[in-house]
């Protein structure tokens, strides 16, 4: 079993979906958006964070019950 910030499947943890490449993670809350991005080593300029179907800013507090999408906004051009 993994320990630390990312844990194995647990219904009490926040579900986080990353795009490009698609990846699903279980993350313990509560945590702020900017902390989540920092821990995942993601540049805020390249991503949007969506809770349910609402965009959230970097200071938003994310809870265990939240379903989060971290969407890459970069395309090959």
């Amino acid at each position: 079993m993994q320990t630390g910030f990312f844990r194995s499947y647990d219904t009490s943890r926040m579900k986080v979906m990353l795009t490009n490449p698609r990846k699903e993670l279980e993350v313990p809350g509560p945590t702020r958006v900017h902390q989540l991005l920092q821990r995942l080593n993601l540049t805020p300029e390249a991503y949007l964070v969506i809770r349910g179907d609402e965009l959230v800013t970097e200071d938003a507090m994310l809870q265990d019950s939240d379903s989060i999408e971290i969407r890459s906004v970069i395309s090959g051009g």
Partner: protein
Amino acid sequence: MRCRKCSHPAVIKMPRHNIALCKDCLTEFVHTQVRRAIDAHRMFTTNDRVLVAVSGGKDSLALWSILLKLGYHADALYVDLGIGEYSLQSRQKVQRFTEAVATSYQATLHVHTVEQEQGAGIRELATLVRRPTCATCGTMKRYQFNRVAIEQHYDVMATGHNLDDEAARLLGNVLHWQTDYLDKQSPTLPASLDGFAKKVKPLHRLTEREIAAYAVIHHIDYIVDECPMAKGSKMLAYKRVLNQLEADSPGTKHTFYLKFLDRQAKQRQEDSQTITEQDQHRLHPCETCGQPTSTTVCTYCKMMAKAGSHA
């Protein structure tokens, strides 16, 4: 976080402008930037017929949506490249957007299917002509968008290139000192001679993140997955570097590209030849298809002849 303009809850923080905006103020910001780009670079007016190049991605669908909302006559062209599941999904996104949004503005979607018209998908064509897939795709799209714009008598062709695309392209051109390509980075390229459609980039003042946020808040259902052919592309590498610089110093991309445009505009005033005059001097009709080219036969016709001889 609160909106800097109206104090409603913000949906996006934009460090390059040192502001955060709510849904309504972000919409107003995006529309203002697009209008400003269209007017400042004399792209088109509400009397013109615009052909938008759509791919199913955020930029092109957002552009089509914005132009319709702002009252422009905008139709669209989708080129189905035949890249398996990716093309199936992106085509579906474009068709759904057309049915849900564009038809209510009496806008039309044109579709060009490469497999049907050219006999093979883009990957197969690239293998046949021994060129990288992205280069083959670029040639195909440029050719088909220009052809449809001319044949269907559109006044101008609009693409969804954004600030990140243009800054990354500028970085690539400067890193390789490809100075000949710098002129082509203008947000408006004139219809300099017969067979050439005028080309414009109304989103060049907006970042990818701002456009993606606009698409999300307006429920524009776009293809989020990256084209499988773009893996390892240099453009992606340049964008990563620029985003790192942007994180350390907000406004870097904006300053890099928009200051380049300012310098370019000043340089043009001093140049003896305009882009139109340069094109007229350099280009002539392709012997095979008639589209403008600097050689006897254009790249597209050479590519198709090579593909035909290997098929």
